[in-house]
């Protein structure tokens, strides 16, 4: 190109906006009808039937957890719960690409990802109810679960993920950190700083933004003029992918490729999963009909991720209504057992809180510990 042509293109801002739009096509393997649209990609995903069954089970488990949690919350037996229906592929197929050694940085909506990493459901319930024991990140048999607590401060998990990523690189681990935020989360300064730091150190990280269309009541388009959130990954020099977030196979493929790239020492990757929040923002009084229509919600239910995966797997002969029903029952029984377990946990003590604030308590804290211990609190 001549300088004149180049300069002209640089100053053609309309063209540039178009370029921003076109630079991020959507990765897609399984379409809305449950048909494979890219056989090559499917091969590249390299999922055995067992893998497919496991991903489907995780999605079903997540859906059941969502249904039960929402119900329990309505009865006042849950504290805070952020529904996950609609995001099962985005959460369960993405996290399936990671190992025990990888570190998870979840947001408040990413409870299912921690659960499949080994966090017992009763702990998730305790976290939700507000009990310190929920945040002991160990499996039932005492093995460490490489996860942070679900982050409430939107963005904080991204800067912290950069530190884990750098640490894994320094320790020469074959592992990455994988961090989640929402579409709203991409507006926070920490979101950019986290990706930028991890990128600058070429550290081991995969960053996800689950674009579910809303930040509480605020629609995605009010967050940013960027046509694709994926463009935000470019601000840190990261390869950035938009994926159909209701397509479990495509989500898995993107996550797997991203992890492989990062573990190989190439630096982090950013993935935007296009999905939808089919339920209220949380169980704390949100009413979606204040800011979106029932028709819009109904429309999105048609593309929810379990539907198409079910169709595909039934065609493959590896899934059926009966299998699902049996599994649903199993999951629900498990949930029941976990609720019982959570119900029976000892009351928290203020004196313990004080002992968990500083390793060596202050003079005033020592007085306070004594007082509360005397009161049995």
């Amino acid at each position: 190109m001549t300088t004149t042509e180049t300069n002209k293109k640089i100053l053609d801002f309309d063209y540039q906006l178009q370029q921003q739009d076109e630079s991020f096509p959507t990765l897609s393997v399984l379409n809305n009808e449950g048909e494979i649209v890219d056989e090559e990609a499917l091969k590249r995903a390299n999922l055995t039937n067992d893998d497919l069954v496991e991903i489907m089970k995780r999605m079903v488990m997540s859906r059941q957890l969502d249904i039960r949690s929402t119900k329990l919350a309505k009865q006042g037996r849950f504290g805070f719960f952020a529904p996950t229906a609609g995001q099962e592929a985005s959460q369960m197929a993405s996290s399936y690409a990671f190992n025990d050694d990888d570190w998870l940085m979840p947001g408040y909506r990413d409870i299912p990802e921690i659960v499949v990493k080994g966090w017992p459901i009763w702990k998730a319930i305790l976290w939700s109810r507000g009990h310190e024991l929920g945040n002991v990140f160990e499996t039932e048999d005492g093995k460490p679960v490489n996860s942070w607590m679900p982050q409430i401060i939107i963005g904080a998990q991204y800067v912290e993920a950069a530190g884990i990523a750098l640490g894994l690189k320094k320790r020469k681990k074959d592992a990455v950190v994988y961090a989640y935020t929402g579409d709203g989360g991409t507006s926070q300064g920490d979101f950019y700083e986290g990706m930028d730091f991890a990128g600058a150190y070429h550290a081991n990280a995969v960053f996800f933004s689950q674009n579910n269309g809303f930040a509480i009541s605020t629609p995605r388009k009010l967050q940013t003029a960027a046509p694709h959130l994926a463009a935000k990954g470019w601000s840190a020099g990261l390869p950035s992918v938009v994926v159909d977030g209701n397509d479990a196979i495509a989500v898995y493929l993107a996550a797997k490729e991203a992890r492989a790239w990062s573990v190989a020492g190439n630096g982090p990757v950013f993935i935007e999963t296009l999905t939808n929040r089919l339920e209220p923002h949380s169980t704390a009084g949100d009413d979606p009909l204040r800011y979106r229509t029932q028709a819009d919600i109904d429309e999105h239910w048609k593309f929810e991720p379990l539907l198409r995966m079910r169709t595909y797997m039934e065609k493959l002969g590896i899934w059926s209504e009966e299998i699902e029903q049996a599994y649903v029952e199993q999951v629900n029984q498990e949930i029941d057992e976990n609720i019982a377990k959570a119900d029976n946990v000892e009351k928290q003590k203020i004196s313990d809180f004080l002992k968990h604030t500083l390793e060596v308590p202050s003079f005033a804290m020592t007085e306070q510990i004594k007082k509360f211990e005397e009161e049995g609190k």
Partner: protein
Amino acid sequence: MAVKSYIDAIREGLDLALEKDPDTLIFGEDVGQNGGVFRATDGLQAKYGEDRVFNTPLAESGIGGLAIGLTTQNYRPIMEIQFFGFIFEVMDSIAGQMSRNRFRFNNTRHMPIVVRSPYGGGTKTPEMHADNLEGIVAQVPGIRVVMPANPADAKGLLLSSIESNDPVIFLENLHLYRSLKGEVPEGYYTTPLDTAAVAREGKDVSIIAYGGTVPLALKAADTLAEQGIDAEVLDLRTVSPLDIEAIGKTVQKTGHVVVAQEAQRLAGVGSKVMAEISERFILSLAAPIGFVAAPDSIYPFPQAEGDWMVKADDIVAKAVEVVNYD
């Protein structure tokens, strides 16, 4: 006068401010169509339009910067921080920028900004939603920190805050939003900033409280009355600057002081009140100052909130101790 809830009084104040001055703007996360997560701005976008009441992207530092920038075009921003625990994301805008600009510009520019935000415990929110962080912002010169303890004050102090040409952190007690109702005068009125109110007269002991602790202090005073102790309750209303004269007056009157706050002992503004007394009015004291505050742990997880928080009985016990000292 009609009886209204604390949050309805706030919404009414916002409505009146928007009506009175076309330069006032309300913005923040979800304040538009949704009317805020607590409905404090419910209906205001419909009434005043998206130009006056609008959502922001999800970034508190951006919201603070937006407010500061808008003042250059003679707007009077009322910005919302969805929960005060998210104040850390906007600390530079508050403590590094808006508070300093009148000074920086040699008094040629000012910052008529109100930062509205809910705080305080007792509603079992997730963590970072209930912390009492007023003591942190009260350490910042160049801003005011206002913490109304009843619906009438909530409305009157809010309108004063909006009229103020200096930045005001206006803290709304989450627990009181719907649990506290009271008489609220009709129409537009202002309640002076930096002025404490005697919420109950008494002669034996002064309970100095603010925000969510004021209703507890009033309850404690009732219990104390049954025990023959006549407690005065001073509601600070504005925790920065402090109303030193009102503090002095009640200390001189009763000679016995209990300072009560919802914040941890090492946080809050109770210590500041005690320091002022120990420097200015110590001779009026007949006993050491009693301090009722939460323990110095991290604000706890919701299930244990009830045990952790200061209770009216704690204030009663401390008041009895102080009164019986001599």
